[in-house]
């Protein structure tokens, strides 16, 4: 008995030590499996962060603005990960670079020579790599530690983490083609742009497509559990019921996932079904579409699921890994998750049962006037925590209106706008927030010690206009791909759709600022601690007032010392922010907007903060291939 207790204590101590050492790493897309984006590193503090200096930087060489013979633009959205005493970064050309953590010197590179084509997305993009290591490594054997990178052509590459050589024992000579499981072959490849989630010896793989393009017979958004060493399929989670597949598709998981290591439950942010903006041909019940769905990571069986948008016709994909954190409430510790969303709500649920911790109310919403549409009369609303985007839009931007001779007001008067969840219409509907958020794919971060949740968001307005098939064909006939980039065919349905930003002819936003903010919430009460405009907007190089903020993509990370590190803004700056007050304590210029999640790690006693500054051509033409690390001077 005593011996068993001692072994138990020793095991607990070992686990604790392991967890502590782990937290100095940054070995997943979100820093850890719980997607907290939290580090226990303590070297950089609010007092000394002003002394942060460039430690190293590299240019991967993998970026494109369509010049130099590469026909697609690049989106560098990879979190640099730190594991195996190495920094690994994936590039938009689907190469993997292994870097020395203190100098940025390249140890090795892996190049799968992937096609440089934008097959399913507006450009080439990668959110980086995943890392796995054997629990019982065999000495002298290769591929006991593996780095994975996916590609737009639906291939997952497994690479030895020490040498950069392909792991030939994985799938077909180190390459797993998940398109073998495509339910609608010939439509598009199931692009693996988000690195898989790794838990124990299982890779959980989601994928991205173009669910705005095809209305019927699109690939079903199935999720796959695969053996990490062999690439063999362990399980498939069928997101859509079989009867829905012929008329719809997708409801895929294109964003990152989180895992509760205590229970082995994996949490899937499930996206909307196809087509995105008209649902008249998908009248079946699709309970997993636009949901959070919890699965047993080893079997793929559903533990619970909660739909966040019913009959989604706004492309409100659940688009980030829910943040798992424990909440102390009424004297109890509740295992919770916080799900940020495009529609601006923060859903706080019990992660074991899916039950709401803060109330979710079904409220009546504006109804569609499109023939054949089967929209839901109600949608789930959350009032606590306060939504990151308010119910009503910010109104016409006076400056943009004057500059355009009143064009903004004239356009607004022609649109349908009935508040949140205004359905797409033939006249054009104003959406605030639209599909670009709200909160984007980075999601939020948590300080688990103090129960604080931090999230960045955008305030944006877009116009959704459905076009009858005949009108759509007439309108888009003869357009170049660039001219047609905001037109989505939704083929196989009676309507195409025109989705565009609510800009005036000068390219100025017609909605009033702010354009982005950063918020901190006390999750024990659900109350907002602070909310501040975040980032800056540049027009013609001129920085607009700080109160305007910036559209944000990417996410914050938090350190134990009470610091938030974040890129995300469109002004090509990275910042350190005081967790208590929201005050900017440090900032630095980087080559392009850092629209990725940063990472922090400690190597040889020194803490580094690394940003990938690649830009996003949809938001600003400034792109780069820079990976840059900051540290305190020695």
């Amino acid at each position, binding site marked *: 008995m005593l011996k068993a207790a001692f072994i138990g204590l020793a095991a607990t101590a070992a686990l604790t030590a392991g967890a502590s050492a782990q937290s100095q790493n940054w070995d997943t897309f979100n820093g850890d499996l719980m997607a907290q984006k939290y580090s226990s590193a303590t070297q950089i503090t609010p007092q000394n962060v002003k002394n942060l200096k460039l430690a190293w930087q590299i240019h991967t060489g993998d970026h494109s603005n369509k010049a130099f013979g590469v026909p697609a633009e690049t989106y560098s959205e990879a979190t640099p990960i730190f594991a195996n005493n190495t920094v690994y970064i994936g590039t938009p050309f689907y190469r993997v670079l292994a870097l020395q953590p203190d100098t940025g010197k390249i140890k090795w590179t892996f190049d799968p020579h992937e096609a440089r084509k934008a097959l399913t997305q507006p450009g080439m993009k990668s959110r980086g790599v995943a890392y796995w290591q054997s629990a019982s490594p065999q000495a002298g054997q290769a591929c006991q530690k593996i780095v994975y990178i996916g590609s737009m052509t639906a291939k997952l590459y497994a690479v030895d983490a020490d040498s950069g050589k392909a792991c030939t024992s994985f799938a077909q000579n180190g390459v797993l083609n998940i398109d073998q499981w495509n339910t609608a072959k010939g439509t598009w490849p199931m692009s693996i742009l988000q690195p898989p989630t790794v838990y124990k010896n299982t890779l959980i793989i989601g994928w991205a497509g173009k669910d705005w393009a095809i209305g019927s017979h699109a690939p079903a958004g199935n999720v796959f559990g695969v053996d990490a060493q062999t690439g063999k399929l362990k399980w498939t989670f069928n997101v859509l019921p079989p009867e829905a597949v012929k008329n719809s598709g997708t409801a895929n998981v294109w964003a990152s996932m989180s895992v509760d290591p205590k229970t082995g439950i994996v949490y899937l942010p499930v996206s909307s079904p196809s087509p995105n903006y008209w649902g008249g041909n998908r009248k079946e019940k699709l309970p997993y579409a636009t949901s959070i769905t919890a699965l047993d990571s080893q079997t793929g069986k559903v533990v619970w699921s909660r739909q966040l948008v019913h009959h989604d016709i706004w492309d409100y994909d659940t688009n980030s890994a829910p943040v798992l954190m424990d909440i102390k409430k009424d004297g109890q510790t509740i295992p919770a998750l916080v799900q940020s969303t495009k529609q601006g709500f923060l859903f706080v649920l019990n992660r074991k049962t899916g039950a709401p911790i803060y109330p979710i109310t079904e409220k009546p919403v504006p109804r569609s006037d499109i023939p054949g549409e089967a929209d839901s009369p109600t949608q789930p609303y959350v009032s606590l925590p306060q939504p990151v985007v308010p119910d009503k839009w910010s109104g016409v931007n006076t400056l943009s209106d004057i500059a355009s001779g009143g064009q903004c007001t004239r356009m607004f008067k022609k649109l349908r706008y009935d508040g949140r969840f205004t359905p797409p219409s033939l006249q054009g509907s104003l959406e605030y927030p639209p599909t670009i958020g709200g909160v984007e794919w980075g999601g939020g971060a948590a300080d688990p010690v103090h129960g604080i949740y931090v999230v960045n968001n955008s305030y944006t307005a877009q116009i959704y206009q459905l076009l009858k098939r005949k009108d759509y064909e007439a309108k888009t006939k003869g357009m170049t791909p660039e001219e047609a980039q905001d037109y989505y065919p939704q083929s196989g349905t009676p309507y195409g759709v025109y989705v565009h930003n609510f800009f005036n002819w000068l390219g100025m936003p017609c909605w009033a600022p702010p354009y982005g903010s950063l918020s901190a919430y006390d999750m024990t009460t659900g109350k907002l601690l602070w909310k501040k405009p975040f980032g800056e907007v*540049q*027009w*013609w*190089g*001129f*920085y*607009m007032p700080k109160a305007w903020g910036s559209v944000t993509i990417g996410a914050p990370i938090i350190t134990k010392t009470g610091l938030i590190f974040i890129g995300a803004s469109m*002004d*090509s*700056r990275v910042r350190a922010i005081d967790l208590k007050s929201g005050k900017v304590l440090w900032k630095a*210029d*980087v*080559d*392009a907007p850092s629209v990725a999640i940063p990472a922090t790690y400690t190597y040889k006693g020194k803490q580094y903060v690394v940003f990938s500054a690649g830009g996003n051509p949809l938001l600003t033409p*400034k792109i*780069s291939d*820079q990976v840059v690390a900051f540290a305190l001077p020695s």
Partner: protein
Amino acid sequence: MPLSDSIAIPDRSPLNGARLIAIAAAVGFVICLVDYFTPHGTIAHQWGTLLVLISTLLMLGASCWIAFGAMSRGLLILFQVLIILDILGTAVCAYFLEAPALLVFMAVALVGWIWHLASDSPRISAS
């Protein structure tokens, strides 16, 4: 004139003020040029940077003209007004471009303009 004399007896010639404006404008122009072509710079290849490149160039030309050229009283006053508008406009642009060095040199140009005007005042009175 020996240097020591120029220190001992302040030269109240309005030319010195104009020269100071010209120097500040020239330095400002070079700063803008560097900013415009700095790879991945925050204001590289921006219309705003191009605007201040032009405004500093105009300031340089106008200040050189009043420093070294001959002109009528009316034209001189017109140039003085245009130069101060140029200085203030460029300074506002520098503020919004977050180009502190350019802002500093516009402050120097402003000093030059005040110097020029102060030195010129007796002549205006006399005339």
